């Protein structure tokens, strides 16, 4: 006796036969017929023609038959709206039935009939059912409101059902509460501004009570609803967390994850030093680990969410690395996600284990997985510096396997390793070059070309290698073409003599034979650069690249915050904000994490909740502001020295005038010696390198910020233009000019080394003699490439103040020894003492007063600064840029008295009083310091800062 018998009638008149049976007098036959109809319906056959006959069977006492007819009605009412009206009466009658099961069934089915004409007849029965004495009917009716809203939202609002629904949140039965919440959340999704879920401490309390007693599904709805609430303070936040934590032990993983969401969000508000905060962190790990022992589909969703959680709070799972180890029979989508999290959790403590695992994975069968594993090794190298060496050797081992896709992936990641640790692992280049022929994927080819171009000077046959790529230039993908173009230009700049032809070839391929605008543009830019000013070309093309950061794929913090608020949702699976992809998201709310209140600056609950509810994306705007602020700060720290503009050489102008004409071709053509333009092309750079030639772009930026400086922004520390420290004639052709600067709290020695000799200079090193403030180089002198004749290079040497101390005469004298392959040279220079003023040199007013009195008057020194036309505010702004802080200002008789303090790196405080008389260009500065001998140099700094 199975239902498959209902499918046995396959004769022609099937519908006809059924019709006859439906109209039969025998109850049993009728029921069988309805069953047959339903069976056909479930497999997608069209039995809508039987509508009137089936509806006729509705008036019955038999519950099963009634249910079956209801099933049919729900499916076909839409296609037969006129007929469906026939059913209305029965529904209205059934809503009055003494049996609550029938009442509930009727109200349920009613809502599923998606016919406008019918809906208005249903309002009265629904209203009754919402107030039914039986909770089973009420809870069914609650869902019905959501259904009706989907069909006719206006009707629901006009009839006041939404208010009734809100009242149900306070129902005595937890199941009714849960369904009311679920219905309201669904309605709210289409009405983001309606403020339907008016969450206040009272409703929250009711929800929390219902949470314990309702079904698992109800718990999910309630938890998701709780997550939208913003607690008033950390106490409320903690008490909600306490009541939610038991849900972490629920067998239903969706409940667990929703609870995790609530906890992750409310935890933000708890002070970190609270014991409970630590307890909570500990409680979060086990349930997350348990999710990973569930079915693979659940694991996948859990892993996507764990990925977010690990980024936000890595401490939760830092000891659980092993649960993310991949089993070979995990589905591929689980494997890939686990791998991702393994890298996020990788640290110095567990890196050996992780690497061993990754190496194991790299020999698996699944190509996608192996690729990702190889990439992961590279990411480990970048993330955990101590492991870099081991990672590189592992990658080399993998390259030796000669498995095509492994080699390609390895090369791609080795490129990244080179960018993170320049000049460290170049010994492997030879091995990489051996595998050049096997590369067939664009990314790997591009990576290899980048490596060859970047290290052209160390690869003897770089030109041959690049030339081999050039043969099929037009068949390469854009990525490879662009990379090849850049690499050959790099090669040309490094080995200009042998690669003329090559560069000309690639430029013409890129500019004349290509349809790709990106490629053409880049080609023209290089061409123009090379023809006008090869030095500038060098600066641009061979510029020092910023090191790549540890994790390039971290989710941007504001997005991460938003996603944390959406844990467990589709957004968390796709790692995209809901607004980015949810269909018909009519203004999805941007959620954000509540701020911690421990700072005492808690926002009032009104504003926060308003912000959370409002349509505008509150999370984005403030952060943009922050970003902008950061940017300004960041860019302001470098000094705004605009050195003399680069002198335009005549050759440059010539090249510019006839840029694309024949002159260029002849310039790049074979006869190097003849053409006058060559001077510009390859000849000597302007003898005295301008001090701030380094970045024309940032120069412009600095100008911009100079303007901004007037708006009360502190300006960068002043640094003097470069002066020649070591003339070439004293140092066998090496000329060093330089200056000192303090940038972002680091003292820097900025030097230009120029080779005016006939031979190449290499092997530079620098050393300081003992000096008054213990200045010493913080790292080696970074002159990596040999310095060719007539070439100059900009070097920035960071300094620290932990070197040996010896008092010098004068105090700020520094004796320097520079070595190169030719000889050792000595020179001495004087640094402005303002370099030593530290960032935290602002003294408290009281302390200042006390200290001022405390220092004997003998130590006071008075100086005058003449010809200064700044207002006192502008002056104090300017001084602040050099870490001279104005603590207080007093105006007496039109004379501004500024009280200032600064602190030297060795902890010596200098206090100052500066008097500025409006209209008088002479300032008077009185300095007081326990070590009186510095006063003179401080004064010099004052003068230098104020006059520049």
């Amino acid at each position: 006796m199975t239902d498959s018998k209902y499918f046995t009638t396959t004769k022609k008149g099937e519908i006809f036969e059924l019709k006859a049976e439906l109209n039969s007098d025998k109850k049993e036959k009728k029921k069988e017929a309805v069953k047959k109809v339903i069976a056909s319906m479930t497999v997608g056959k069209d039995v809508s023609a039987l509508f009137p006959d089936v509806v006729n069977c509705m008036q019955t006492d038999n519950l099963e038959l009634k249910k079956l007819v209801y099933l049919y009605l729900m499916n076909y009412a839409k296609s037969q709206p006129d007929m469906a009206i026939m059913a209305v009466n029965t529904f209205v009658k059934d809503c009055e039935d003494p049996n609550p099961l029938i009442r509930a069934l009727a109200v349920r089915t009613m809502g599923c009939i998606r016919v406008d004409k019918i809906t208005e007849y249903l309002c009265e029965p629904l209203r009754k059912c919402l107030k039914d004495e039986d909770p089973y009917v009420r809870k069914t009716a609650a869902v019905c409101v959501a259904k009706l809203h989907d069909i006719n939202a206006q009707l629901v609002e006009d009839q006041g059902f939404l208010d009734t629904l809100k009242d149900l949140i306070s129902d005595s039965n937890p199941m009714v509460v849960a369904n009311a919440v679920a219905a309201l959340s669904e309605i709210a999704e289409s009405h983001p501004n309606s403020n339907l879920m008016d969450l206040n401490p009272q409703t929250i309390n009711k929800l929390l009570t219902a949470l314990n007693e309702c079904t698992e599904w109800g718990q999910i709805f309630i938890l998701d609803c709780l997550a939208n609430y913003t607690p008033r303070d950390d106490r409320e936040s903690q008490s909600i967390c306490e009541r939610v934590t038991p849900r972490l032990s629920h067998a239903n993983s969706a409940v667990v994850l929703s609870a995790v969401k609530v906890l992750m969000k409310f935890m933000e508000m708890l002070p970190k030093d609270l014991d409970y905060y630590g307890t909570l962190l500990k409680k979060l790990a086990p349930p997350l680990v348990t999710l990973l022992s569930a079915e693979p589909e659940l694991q996948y969703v859990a892993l996507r969410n764990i990925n977010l959680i690990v980024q936000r709070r890595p401490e939760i799972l830092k000891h659980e690395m092993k649960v993310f180890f991949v089993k070979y029979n995990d589905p591929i989508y689980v494997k890939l996600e686990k791998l991702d999290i393994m890298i996020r959790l990788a640290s110095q403590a567990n890196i050996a284990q992780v690497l061993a695992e990754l190496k194991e994975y790299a020999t698996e069968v699944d190509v996608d997985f192996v690729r990702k594993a190889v990439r992961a090794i590279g990411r480990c190298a970048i993330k955990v510096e101590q492991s870099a060496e081991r990672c590189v050797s592992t990658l080399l081992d993998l390259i030796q396997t000669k498995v095509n896709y492994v080699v390609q992936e390895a090369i791609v990641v080795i490129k990244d390793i080179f960018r993170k640790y320049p000049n460290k692992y170049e010994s492997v280049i030879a091995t990489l070059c051996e595998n050049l022929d096997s590369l067939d994927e664009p990314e790997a080819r591009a990576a290899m070309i980048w490596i060859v171009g970047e290290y052209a000077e160390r690869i003897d046959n770089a030109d041959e290698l690049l030339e081999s790529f050039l043969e099929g230039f037009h068949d390469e993908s854009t990525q490879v073409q662009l990379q090849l173009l850049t690499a050959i230009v790099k090669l040309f700049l490094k080995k200009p003599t042998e690669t003329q032809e090559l560069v000309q070839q690639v430029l013409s391929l890129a500019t004349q034979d290509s349809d790709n605008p990106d490629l053409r543009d880049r080609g023209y830019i290089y061409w123009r650069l090379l023809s006008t000013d090869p030095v500038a070309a060098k600066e641009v093309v061979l510029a020092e690249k910023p090191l790549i950061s540890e994790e390039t794929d971290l989710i941007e913090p504001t997005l991460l915050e938003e996603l944390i608020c959406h844990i467990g949702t589709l957004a968390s699976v796709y790692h995209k904000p809901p607004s980015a992809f949810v269909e018909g998201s009519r203004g999805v709310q941007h959620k954000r994490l509540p701020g911690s209140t421990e700072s005492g600056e808690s926002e009032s609950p009104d504003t926060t909740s308003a912000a959370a509810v409002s349509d505008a994306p509150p999370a984005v705007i403030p952060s943009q502001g922050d970003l902008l602020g950061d940017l300004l700060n960041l860019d302001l720290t470098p000094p705004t020295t605009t050195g003399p503009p680069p002198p335009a050489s005549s050759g440059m102008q010539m090249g510019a005038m006839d840029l694309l004409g024949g002159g260029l071709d002849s310039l790049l053509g074979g006869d190097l010696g003849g053409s006058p333009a060559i001077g510009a092309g390859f000849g000597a750079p302007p003898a005295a390198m301008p001090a701030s030639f380094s970045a024309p772009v940032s120069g412009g930026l600095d100008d911009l910020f100079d303007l901004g400086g007037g708006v009360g922004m502190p300006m960068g520390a002043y640094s003097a233009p470069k002066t020649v420290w070591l003339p070439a004639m004293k140092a066998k052709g090496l000329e060093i000019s330089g200056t000192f600067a303090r940038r972002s709290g680091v003292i820097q020695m900025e030097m230009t080394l120029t080779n005016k000799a006939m031979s190449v200079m290499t092997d530079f090193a620098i050393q300081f003699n003992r000096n008054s403030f213990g200045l010493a180089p913080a790292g080696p002198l970074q002159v990596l490439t040999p310095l060719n004749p007539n070439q100059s290079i900009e070097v920035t040497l960071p300094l620290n103040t932990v070197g040996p101390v010896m008092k010098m005469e004068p105090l700020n004298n520094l004796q320097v020894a520079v070595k190169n392959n030719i000889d050792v040279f000595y020179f001495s220079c004087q640094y402005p003492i303002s370099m030593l003023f530290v960032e935290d040199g602002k003294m408290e007013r009281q302390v200042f007063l006390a200290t001022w009195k405390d220092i004997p008057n003998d130590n006071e020194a008075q100086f005058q600064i003449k010809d200064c036309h700044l207002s006192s505010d502008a002056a104090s702004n300017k001084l602040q840029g050099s870490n001279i802080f104005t603590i207080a200002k007093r105006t007496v008789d039109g004379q501004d008295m500024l009280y200032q303090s600064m602190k030297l790196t060795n902890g010596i405080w200098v206090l100052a009083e500066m008097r500025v008389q409006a209209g008088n260009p002479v300032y008077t500065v009185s300095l007081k310091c326990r070590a009186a001998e510095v006063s003179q140099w401080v004064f010099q700094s004052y003068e230098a800062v104020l006059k520049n």
Partner: protein
Amino acid sequence: MIHSLFLINHLGDIFLEKHWKSVISRSVCDYFFEAREKAVDPENVPPVLQTPHHYLISIYRGKLFFLSVIQTEVPPLFVIEFLHRVADTFQDYFGECSESVITDNLVIVYELLEEMLDNGFPLATESNVLKEMIRPPNILRSVVNTLTGGSNVGETLPQGQLSNIPWRRAGVKYANNEAYFDVTEEIDAIVDKSGTTVSAEIQGVIEACVKLSGMPDLTMSFMNPRLLDDVSFHPCVRFRRWESERVLSFIPPDGNFTLMTYHISSQNLVAIPVYVKQSINFFEAGSCGRLDITIGPKQTMGKTVEDLKVTIHMPKAVLNANLTATQGNYTYDCTTKMLVWDIGKLNPQKLPNLRGSLSMQTGVPNPEENPSLNIDLKIQQLAISGLKVSRLDMYGEKYKPFKGVKYVTKAGKFQVRT
């Protein structure tokens, strides 16, 4: 909420569709079929798929895809949990969850789906409640129904839905009152080629079969509850009691249910019952390979290891295997490349060994990957974590029930790398 459900067999035929809101054309499944094609193995189909207008969330159970369609933001875990619950319910009602059994009981299936979800909201998912409303098919009932014209739809209101204990129906009566608990522990472990444990954890589950009259209130306590720090409970368990006293106090659902699952991850608590000595080598010359595997007992707590089985997924190049087993027998399926060695009981005196040669495809480079060994085993009367139930008490009812606890340890995802 959940919009529609499609059941799809392994051939890619949709054999059942159910819509809880408006009807969505089955052409939406084409996106799924595309992904299915790409994934090669059905296990590898991503569970969450995005299509231009819908989201498809699917699970793969018993060679069937349960594919749900959703239109709005819905927690995917909620959908996946629900789909598994649907599959569990079918299993519970029909004894298995397969295409043939579902088509045989289409009407019941349809009624069930209608009761489980209303407008996409879960309605009744507890097996007890469902069974009260829709009676499971059995031969006797269908005979009675045909004779009396009765139906398999209950006439009463499912009372359980309204009480505070929705999982238990009222008025349960048994002649023999009994409560059985099965403590099953599965060892998930990765052992590397040198025999060191890379990772090991225990997934434990306590399944209960409780047939007690009335409203019994049970309390289960353990000898060593400290072992359990990562647990998830059936909703019937009172969490506060567990937090404060470390006992399980609950009013059980009627019949079979999962009382709790637990997870023991700290490695020193996880004993590895067997060790494996293996060498699998492939030679360039002569295109052949050698295989030699020996298994011996390691930490078995004095119990016998049974149902021992080793499964190896060989590289593609292995054409055939010519081996001798000192115990049990082996099969090699040359299409799926699965070598299965069914050993049976492990005799510590005479260790089972499998050795011999593998014939390889000629002219193909040596396989890069090393096959992993998957171990299956079973140890009766032992929970490998050492977990022990100390006592089970019943309150609230007068009769004296019959109680029993059974332990078994199995290998879960237990793999040995080579």
